[in-house]
Structures are given as structure tokens and as C-alpha cells.
């Protein structure tokens, strides 16, 4: 049986030749993402800004009457709703800010939800109320700060771990790559205005985990090669390491993407944003391992002496028909 080989043997692509351009583009993308977030803002769900979200399905209608709904809910006098489709065209979520004073008197929020649902039931007999989420300002502030802390905490803890297992340059490189991944994901959410909720924090942390996975595989090979080929030029050595792990990178990314495509197409609508973010994250994470995490090692002057060799200097430069050194 002939097995599939996604990457031919002895592939030798000079990835690092493009490092300056790639890093420049990445920095532009990071700045662009920040500008997008600053300018358009994130479409925060009730988890993070408080308020009320009612999820409904119009069981007999193919298209939910969004503009009519907006008008009718607006007429109730609680301000303008944010109405969004999620998943199918007949499924919409109606988001409202909590009425003034609802933090003191939760009855106000109840009354608002009651009025909206009874209006829906009266005017649209085929409507099905799928869920009501109501989050007070106090709780949403806590959820937001917890979300921020979990992201910051994860990035720092992981950086620290890599510093301990490798060297400080590797920790710095991983942190920079993670910063790149997280920034771009934020930019994606500012651009698409997909709802940013608790699930997306989970997606961000998974992206961090995945991107790190990739970075570590490359770093592990760099460490191995640094000990093996002590005389090799650092750029050539990085290229060699990236190429040696390329088959694995492509294979793993593809399996992840296959699983995610299944989630996006057939999965529950509620986690569409989550799956979309992860899908993007696989690309960003793979890219950043090669073009963010690796070049930083050059600039931070990583060399064979970064790791004290386990055996006597000179090392055991075993070359069992290994690839030719490239300059």
C-alpha cells in the first residue's frame, strides 16, 4: 500500500529568508488588529457587559423578521435591542441592556424579559423561546476580569514553564508568538463583530495551547539540533529544524482543521463563534511558531552555548545520513 505523504522527504524550504518581511507584516497585523478593536470595538455578549439575551427560534418561518422585531422591541421602551442571527436564518438572539436601577431591584429586569417574551408569543405564534440569559452588571464585571486574568495568567505561566524547560530566549519568543495570536484573534472578532462571550475566552485559551504546542515542537527540534550541529549557522539551523518538523506540522494542522470543519458545518449553532475562532487560530498559531517564535531566537542571539552540552564539548555530532547542511 502506498501511503500518503503530505510533505516530500528532504523538503528544504528557506523559511527564515523571509523573516524580516514576515515579522514586519505580523507587526502591521497586530497594530491593525488593535486599531480595529479600538475603532469598531468588540461585540461583547451579556456575559461581559451585563444585560439580557433571549434566544428564539421561529419554527414556521424561514427568515426571522429582524427589522420588524427591532422595531417592536424598541416600542416597549427599554431602548434599542441588539438583534443577531445565530446559526440558521430563523434563529435570532435579542440582547438588551438591563434597565436603569436593575442592580438594586432585579424585578425590573424580570418585567422587561416578561414583556419581551409575551410580546413575542402574542405577535409570532410560531416562536419558541430557547433560552434567557440575564447577567447583572456586578457579575459581568467579575466575569470580564476573570476572563482577562485567565488569559494573562495562562500566557505568563506558560512562558515561565518554557523558560525553565528551555532558556529565557525561548520563553520570550513563545510569549511574543502568543501575543501575536491573541491580538489577531481579537482583531478577527472586531472585524466580524461575532459575539464575544465566555466561550470565546475558552477558544482563546485553546488557541494559546495549540499555538504553544506547535512552538514547542519546533523549539524542541531547535534545541536538539543546537546540541547536534554546534558549528551550523543559526539561520540554517532554524530552517533545518522547521523543515524537519514540517511534515508533522502540516499533518496535525490538517487533522485539527478537519475536526473543526465538522464542528463549524454540523455542530451546534451556539458554539459557531468558538469553532470559527479556533479554525483561524490553527492558521495563526502555526504561522507564529515559524515566523514569530523562531526569528526572535536569532535576535536574542541563541547559539550552541545557550545549552550547556550534556557531554563534553564537541558533542556527539552523529550524522546518520542526515540532511546536508545548508548555508
Amino acid at each position: 500500500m502506498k501511503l500518503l505523504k503530505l510533505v516530500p522527504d528532504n523538503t528544504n524550504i528557506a523559511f527564515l529568508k523571509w523573516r524580516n518581511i514576515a515579522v514586519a507584516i505580523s507587526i502591521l497585523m497586530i497594530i491593525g488588529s488593535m486599531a480595529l478593536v479600538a475603532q469598531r470595538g468588540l461585540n461583547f455578549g451579556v456575559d461581559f457587559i451585563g444585560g439580557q439575551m433571549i434566544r428564539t427560534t421561529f419554527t414556521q418561518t424561514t427568515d426571522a423578521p429582524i427589522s420588524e422585531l427591532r422595531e417592536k422591541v424598541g416600542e416597549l421602551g427599554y431602548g434599542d435591542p441588539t438583534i443577531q442571527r445565530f446559526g440558521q436564518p430563523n434563529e435570532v438572539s435579542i440582547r438588551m441592556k438591563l434597565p436603569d436601577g436593575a442592580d438594586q431591584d432585579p424585578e425590573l429586569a424580570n418585567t422587561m424579559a416578561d414583556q419581551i417574551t409575551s410580546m413575542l408569543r402574542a405577535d409570532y405564534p410560531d416562536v419558541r423561546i430557547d433560552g434567557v440569559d440575564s447577567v447583572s452588571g456586578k457579575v459581568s464585571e467579575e466575569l470580564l476580569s476573570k476572563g482577562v486574568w485567565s488569559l494573562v495568567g495562562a500566557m505568563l505561566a506558560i512562558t515561565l514553564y518554557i523558560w525553565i524547560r528551555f532558556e529565557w530566549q525561548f520563553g520570550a519568543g513563545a510569549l511574543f508568538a502568543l501575543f501575536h495570536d491573541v491580538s489577531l484573534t481579537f482583531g478577527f472578532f472586531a472585524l466580524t463583530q461575532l459575539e464575544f462571550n465566555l466561550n470565546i475566552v475558552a477558544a482563546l485559551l485553546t488557541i494559546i495551547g495549540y499555538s504553544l504546542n506547535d512552538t514547542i515542537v519546533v523549539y524542541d527540534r531547535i534545541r536538539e539540533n543546537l546540541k547536534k550541529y554546534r558549528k551550523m549557522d543559526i539561520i540554517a539551523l532554524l530552517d533545518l529544524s522547521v523543515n524537519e518538523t514540517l511534515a508533522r506540522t502540516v499533518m496535525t494542522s490538517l487533522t485539527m482543521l478537519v475536526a473543526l470543519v465538522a464542528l463549524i458545518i454540523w455542530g451546534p449553532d451556539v458554539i459557531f463563534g468558538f469553532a470559527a475562532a479556533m479554525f483561524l487560530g490553527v492558521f495563526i498559531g502555526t504561522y507564529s511558531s515559524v515566523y514569530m517564535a523562531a526569528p526572535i531566537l536569532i535576535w536574542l542571539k541563541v547559539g550552541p552555548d545557550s545549552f550547556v552540552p550534556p557531554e563534553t564539548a564537541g558533542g556527539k555530532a552523529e550524522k546518520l545520513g542526515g540532511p546536508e547542511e545548508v548555508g
Partner: protein
Amino acid sequence: MLDFPRWKVISISLLLAFGVLMSLPSLFFGESHKYWPTFLPDETINLGLDLSGGSHILLEANPTDVAETRLQTMEESVRAEMRRANPRINIGDISRKDGVLSFMVRDSTQVDAAREALLPLTTGAGLTGQRDWDIEVRDDTRFVVSPTSAGLDSAVDNAMDTATDVIRRRIDEMGTREPTIIRQGDTRIVVQVPGLEDPEALKELLGKTAKLEFKLVDFEADPNAVSAGRPPVGSQIFPYPDNPAGLPNIAVKRLGGISGDKLTDAGQGFDPETNAPVVNITFDTEGGAKFARLTQNNVGRPFAIILDGVVLSAPNINEPILGGSAQISGNFTVEGANQLSIALRSGALPVELQVVEERTVGPDLGADSIRKGMIAAIIGTAAVLAFMVVTYGRFGFYANFALALNLFLILGVMAIFNATLTLPGIAGFILTVGSAVDANVLINERIREERRRGRRVVQAVEVGYKEASRAIFDANITNVIAGLLLFIFGSGPVRGFAVVLIIGIITSVFTAVVVTRMLVALWLRRTRPQELVI
């Protein structure tokens, strides 16, 4: 590599069999579960509310309420102690300003006696040996009784414990099945009720503190002052929405009433004359005696029935009520009277609770999510499995076998810990499928590489496993770190995701490295191939 001792094979197989066995009850949810033999494990995974449908309600207490109630109780105890002292200690008005009690002892020779009488009212609080109240004497005769922070903390803690019990009793009375009621942090309680579609009745019930009081009406009060909300000395004003006299408020005597926490039973009934719904209550012995004394001494006068600070009705005491039972009338519906009797039966909440977060998922959406999640999981897994076999042949098949075992193991471990499967948790499953094969991809690619470098079959496999394990270990540790932070800071469904992720990482290292290694070793030993198709 070929040396794989028999005891290792047996213990790995036993561990796998145990994990698969533990996962079985969860896969037979519902009806067939009944026919499950009793000697087999029956722990199952819980379904999160986002999958089963139901309501999640987060309640928060305001600690200043507890402080206020505590101060009032202390004031009454102080009065009682001063009156009971022999000789009686005369004191001036008790002020409750700034959260502390202060009062003058009229006769300066009684200061020491007063201090003696007050000391037993305080007890130790917490582990620091601090007392729950501080008693100070200022300017010779002025007593200041102030709550200590340790005392207040333990009071809030007790109040929350009681509140949790009361809520559990109330929800049980409603006949709801399998509610989860947990204290969270210092002042919060989480209530989760699966299958509950409309949480209005539940919220209504939880929102009532059900603090019932009987107080004498101050019928000498000036109606104009009462309407304006200015109480006469020694009285306080309560709103009275159904007042037949038409006034919005009513004045009652501050002291000398009794509280309704001494009940043994409450039930909905009908007034024999008007046929209006009422609540019948029965006092315990102590409460009955107090109620009898109150009604005996005040025949012909009205007393107010106050629920949560609002007067329900203010009937006249026509005759002493000695039997220990009474009837609460008010402008009730049958349902309202029923709810009130549930609330009274299960006791008053020691503190008012507010809903700060509510999430309700309809059963249709939950079922829909499970169905779609399953479809996505099956398609995603099948595609990944096919992909692995096409790429790595026999080694891909071993990886797939390990992956399938891994899915059972995750379910099994989750069942052992009674963990909760949520919608993001299903996504976590699918992601685990994607990333679990990464370990095998790393190993297999390394074996290919070592073969290219001219190593012999057994040696290539050995080096492949050894060299790849380092990166697998480091990569998975960082993933566990991310998962742990998600678990610590996450809430609800997101935590469910973190649980699947963490368990999945640990089990996948076991299946993808240890189990496949065993399979490969056994195969190599049996066939001793000279060539390797990988």
C-alpha cells in the same frame, strides 16, 4: 523496544478495561440504564444545563442586611437583660447610629452591674479568640456595643448556611427533581434546576425572605403623620397596600410583637366565612405561648401581620387565641397562598437574596445541541481516523485504536468524578480528537525520519518514541496549564470545557504514547519485519 514485559501488558490492559467499563453507564443514558446489573459501576456523567435544559440562578445576599438584623436582635437582648437584672438597671434610649448600639446607664453605680449583665451576650468568634461584639464604656456611663469584623463574618457565614438550607427545603417542597444548591464564595448561592423551563415561580419563591411578624397596631398615631411616613415615638411605619382605611401606611409598636419563625406548619386553606384563600399556621409550643399572651393582653385591639416588611392585613383580636394556630388573611390568590405557605413551612431566609445571574435553556435547544454535537463529533472523528490510516497505514490504525480507547477513557474518568458534560465540553471532545493524534503524528514522523537516516526498523521505532516523547510531554504540560487556568477562572459551561480538556490531555498521553507503544512492540516481536511501511 521488543522487551515489553508481560506484567506491563496485563496492567495496561486492565487499566484500559477499567476505564472502558466506567464509561459504559454514561453511554446508556435513560431507559436501558434500569436493566444495568448492580455489580457494575453506575456512576454517570452529569449533563450540563446547556444540554439538558433548565435554569441556573445565582443569588447574592447583601451583608449589610445581616448586620442590621443582628443589631436589632442585640438591641432587644440588651433591653431584656437590663430589665431582668436585679435590681433592674435603668437605661436611656438606645441609639443604633453607624451600626453600633449606644445607650446611657442612668445610675452611675450600676455601670459595673450593667457590664456584668452584657458580657454573657457576647461569645467568641473565629479562631483568633476575638469576641463577636466589643463592649466599651465611654464618659463613665455611656455604653457602646459594636460588632467586631470576626463576629460579623461568622454571622454572615451562618446566615448563608441557613439560607442554603432554607432554599433547599423550598425547592424540595416545589417537587422539582434533582436541584443543585451550592454556596459560592462568601455571599452567594448557586441554584441549578435541570428541566425547569420557566423559572418565574422559582425566582418568586427564592426572592421571598418570608419573614413573618405580628405587631400591635399603634392606633393612637396621628393618621396624617403616618401617611407622610413620620412614625410616633416607639412606633414604626410599614406600607399597607390593601389597607381598608385607604391610607398607604400603618404605624405599629416597635416592641412587643412576636416573629413568625416559630412555626411547625403552614398550609393553604379557605376562610370559612368569605371563602377567600388564606394561610393557616401552627406555632410551636414556645411561639404558641407567646402568641397566646399577646392576644390575651390585647383583646379588642388590632394587630398587623407583616410579611417581608409589608403589612398583609391588620385584623382585630376578637378573643384570645390559645390553641397555637392562627389564620393569615390577605389579598391572596390560591397560588399565592400556596407559595406563602411553602415559604413559611421551610422557614424564613435570614437574609434577603437577589438574583444576580440567570440562565435558562429550553429543552428543545438542549436536545438540538446534543444531536448536532454528536453528528459533528462522529463526522469529525471519522474524518480524522480515515486521514490517519491513509497517511500512516498500520501505525495509523494503532493510533486510531488508541484514540477510540481515549474517548472511552475520558468518559470513564469523567463518570468517576461525576463531572459535568457541557456544550463547550462536546467541542472539547472534538478538539481532543484533533490534538490527541498529534502525539502519534509526532512519533510516526520521527520514525519515518529515523528510517530515512538509515536506522534499522526496531531502532528507528525505539528512537522515534524516545525523541518524540520529550516534545509531547512539554507540549501537553503547557496545555494542562492553559486548561487549569480556564478551570480556575472559568464559570459554568466553560469549566466543563476545561474539564474535558485536562482529562483528555492526560488520558491521550497514556493512550497515544504508552498504549500504541505496546501495540507496536507486540507486533514487532511477533513478525520481526525487515521493512517498515510508514
